[in-house]
């Protein structure tokens, strides 16, 4: 328990160090741009594939569970749309990114720690926490909402294709369904969640990497911890945010 509180305090101290004024804004701008490519753009592929199949499965599941003549079939499209927007896209995207980006960040920063690159930055009078972590936070805060949007669109398209190909719903009904009683706030809600999740992934993973002590074994452990802790926190905040935003 004391160790937990200790870690908790250290985490917020690190955040304090991260959010101090950068030395040269132009350099941070460049760093942020390259992190966007590295942490964001490079994940578009995996997010697309997973969202497509996720959408397909959700549509088929909804269809089989509502096989009842009283329900109009366009409800399948509506159900698919709402589950994807409300829950799956933001959460699944975040969990995938926790695995991909989180371990990546932790091992990158951890390796820099054990090979004295962080010391070298500090020696030059550079605030290593700001320099290494702030661009990553900004990049993921900007890019992850985009990834979630991509996930939503691809997921719904996947659902439509799967539904039509298996014949559980006609394309017309599906399109009618996904337009029926659409609540724009759901998108806002999804974006808010995504922003929280992005912040969790980047800061928790950076924290794990930044305080690595030892050798390459420790870097490995830190990146595992980064994935586990950020995933658990994502699921926890998912519950909290759902309660706060939808009730």
């Amino acid at each position, binding site marked *: 328990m004391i160790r937990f509180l200790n870690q908790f305090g250290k985490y917020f101290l690190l955040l304090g160090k991260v959010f101090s004024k950068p*030395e*040269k804004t132009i*350099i941070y701008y460049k760093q942020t741009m390259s992190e966007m490519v590295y942490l964001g753009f490079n994940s578009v592929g995996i997010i697309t594939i997973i969202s497509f199949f996720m959408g397909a499965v959700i549509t088929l599941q909804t269809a089989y569970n509502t096989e009842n003549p009283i329900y109009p079939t366009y409800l399948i499209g509506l159900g698919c749309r709402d589950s994807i927007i409300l829950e799956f896209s933001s959460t699944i995207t975040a969990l995938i990114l926790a695995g991909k980006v989180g371990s990546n960040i932790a091992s990158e920063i951890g*390796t*820099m720690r054990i*090979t*004295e*690159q962080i*010391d*070298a930055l*500090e*020696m*030059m*009078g*550079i*605030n290593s926490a700001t320099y290494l972590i702030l661009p990553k936070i900004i990049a993921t805060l900007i890019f992850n909402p985009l990834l979630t949007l991509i996930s939503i669109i691809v997921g719904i398209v996947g659902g439509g294709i799967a539904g039509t190909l298996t014949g559980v719903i006609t394309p017309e009904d599906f399109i009618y369904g996904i337009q029926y009683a659409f609540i724009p706030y759901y998108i806002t809600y999804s974006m808010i969640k995504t922003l929280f999740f992005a912040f969790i992934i980047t800061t928790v993973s950076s924290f794990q990497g930044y305080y690595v002590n030892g050798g390459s074994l420790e870097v490995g452990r830190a990146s595992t911890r980064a994935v586990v802790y950020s995933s658990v926190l994502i699921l926890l905040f998912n519950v909290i945010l759902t309660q706060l935003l939808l009730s």
Partner: protein
Amino acid sequence: MIKAQNIDLSFNGKKVLDNVSVTFEPGKTNLIIGRSGSGKTVLLKSIVGLHNIESGEIWFEDILFNKLDFAGKTEIRKKMGMLFQGSALFDSLTTEQNVRFPLDMFTGMSLEEKTERVNFCLNRVNITNSNKLYPAELSGGMKKRVAIARAIALNPKYLFCDEPNSGLDPLTAILIDELIREITEEYQMTTVVNTHDMNSVMEIGEKIVFINEGIICWEGSKNEILNSDCKILNDFVFANSLAKQLRKSHE
């Protein structure tokens, strides 16, 4: 001039630096020698503030360095260059970008001026035609030399080198020693070098500090080191058979 006074530091209850006092003078290559694990790296890192000392004082000229805040330390650190034991080049940057990094961060130089300075520093350490290579593509000795180039890019007043020539062949090792001594004299820097290589000691040791288990046991010059009456130092100095034979023929 750099002065450390009565500094103490322990890790997990184990004393690594025990009441260390030492002075390093400008225009000289000051050496810290000692066996592996004796506390050389820790002493160097404590002096530059990468480890927080538990008690004692560290002076850079007339400024009490260890009591400064981050911004104050940054001001002094801009005048320091450091070569780390493992080189610590930035993996994601090329040779050229590594050396240019401090210039990018702290000067308003134009790209041409920076490139010129980078090439000057790289030439100084005999690195040519490797500007676009990444650290992973360099040999250990080349990494060390690039790291020295990076350390001197901003014309530092204080230069710290942690084992600049460990793991290098004898010729390259001498080359690096020579280089360090030359730039020290040329720019009147205060240079501190960690080493356990007796060749460097005899080559460049103008002022030598011998540290053993966190305690400074002996101080002097390379002319005095062969005739000291400190037992642990003698064991260190005459560890290899060549040196032992030399001493015998001397007596």
